[in-house]
């Protein structure tokens, strides 16, 4: 059981000629394994700043991040160990894979660096991971990223994230660059892996509908502050905060749209 605590984190960016921007304002939450938290909010609300702090690409101005009660090491082996526990799946599978390297290389690298398996088992482990994300090892292993479709690339990125056997996964808009017809497949895959491996997942998105279906809990972020949190259905179906209500109203919802419309037409007729 791994527990990640985000305690009263404030992040202030100093922008030249602009002054200070408070990207995060006293944000606290706890992510545990076996749990998916959805993080929603519009562009600029601070979602990605949270991801950057979690991966230690940025450090908090105030507050702290604790993994199983211990602060994140600033560098060296400790930091590598921390990052082995927490992995990231990025938004753009066209940019997050190196065009010069084969798929095998992408997945072997974390295996080698983190010494997950002995050298002679590298090949088997790469195959196992590719099968895990429902890719045919022999068909993709020696290929380069450009030979794969967007959905296949994102699956490779997921396999790479899983290679170090992390207990926590941060998925920053993992499907927003993919074609609609395959988005659900990739999300279902993530949900299956989350269940089977007992991962704790932070699902960052601006799509309320998928956040609701794939998260246990949802946090709504507005201008660096958590304005609402609760179980997924509570937050989306019965939002209390005006900002959450606004987000909900702006999301396309054919169900409600046509219900309202038929109610209106009926009212007009009778």
């Amino acid at each position, binding site marked *: 059981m791994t527990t990640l605590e985000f305690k009263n984190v404030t992040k202030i960016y100093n922008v030249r000629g602009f002054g200070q921007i408070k990207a995060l304002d006293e944000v606290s939450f706890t992510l545990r394994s076996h749990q998916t938290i959805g993080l929603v909010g519009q562009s600029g609300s601070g979602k990605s700043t949270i991801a950057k702090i979690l991966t230690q690409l940025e450090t908090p101005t105030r507050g702290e991040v604790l993994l199983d009660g211990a602060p994140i090491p600033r560098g060296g082996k400790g930091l590598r160990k921390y990052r082995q526990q927490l992995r990231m799946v990025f938004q753009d599978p066209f940019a997050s894979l190196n065009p010069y390297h084969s798929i095998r290389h992408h997945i072997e690298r974390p295996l080698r660096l983190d010494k997950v398996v002995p050298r002679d088992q590298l090949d088997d482990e790469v195959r196992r991971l590719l099968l895990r994300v429902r890719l045919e090892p022999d068909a993709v292993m020696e290929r380069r990223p450009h030979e794969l479709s967007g959905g296949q690339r994102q699956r490779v990125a997921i396999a790479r994230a899983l290679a170090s056997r992390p207990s926590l996964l941060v998925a920053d808009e993992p499907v927003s660059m993919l074609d*609609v017809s395959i988005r*659900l497949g990739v999300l279902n895959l993530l949900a299956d892996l989350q269940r089977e491996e007992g991962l704790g997942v932070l699902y960052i998105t601006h*799509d309320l509908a998928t956040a*609701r279906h794939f998260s246990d809990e949802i946090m709504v972020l507005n201008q660096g502050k958590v304005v609402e949190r609760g179980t997924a259905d509570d937050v989306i179906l019965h939002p209390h905060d005006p900002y959450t209500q606004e987000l909900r109203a702006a999301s396309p919802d*054919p169900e409600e749209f*046509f219900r309202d419309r038929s109610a209106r037409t009926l009212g007009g007729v009778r």
Partner: protein
Amino acid sequence: MTDPLLSIRDFSVVYDVDPPVAAVKNVTIDIERGEIVGLAGESGSGKTTLAYGIQRLLKPPAVITSGDVVFHDADGEDIDINSLGVEEMRRFRWDKISMVFQGAMNALNPVTTIGAQLDDVFLIHRPEMNRTERRAAVVDLLEIVKVGGARIRSYPHELSGGMRQRVMIAMALALRPQLMVMDEPTTALDVLVQREILKQISQLRHEFGFSVIFITHDLPLLLEISDRIAIMREGAIVELATSEQIWSDPEHEYTRSLLSSFPRLTGEKGVVVR
């Protein structure tokens, strides 16, 4: 009661590569005056090729292999787009049919002000206008799309994504066209900005009465904004119906599978397949 603005008959486009790819296959559809028609389908289904093809905007190796596109002008004249000469075509484009391109971030010139870019439209298409008139028209456009005339000297990078998309809409609106083709106009924007832009599009449509061909793969969004929706697959329209019919009574198997690939915001949880 039909009043078609654009009649597309048996329209086909082939990409003449080896082996040739039939990107659009025998598409027939009428766009009515003042309606919003949604074109939905996955990448590669031919929706963008169709929208570009009817304006003769495709480059080789694309070849239009069959079909007619007739534009029924508001002044009563029928224009066969395929028979227009080079100069006539140049005049026709943007004046009668304009476009809002995908990704406003990249569609604007980064090294000139938005005012100058809007000014260009009038400079080319309305040579009789003088500098003062053009400037007034540009300010007017920026006011209409609620960017504000004060932004006339702003560069694209000084505007947010939503504002840049509004500038693109202003540009498309400049000559008061009768048809606007919008190719994924809100895909890169977040939900709140997207909603504002959509509201603005329907409001402008009511005000100016133009028709819209709205291309996107976001079916929930399309259901809300369109009057009719054409579902495309492998270059063909597999289903064409009002958005209400598409939602409540889809006929084609593919339409159903497309609908079921979107999780529902408020519908029953877990029930993704209808």
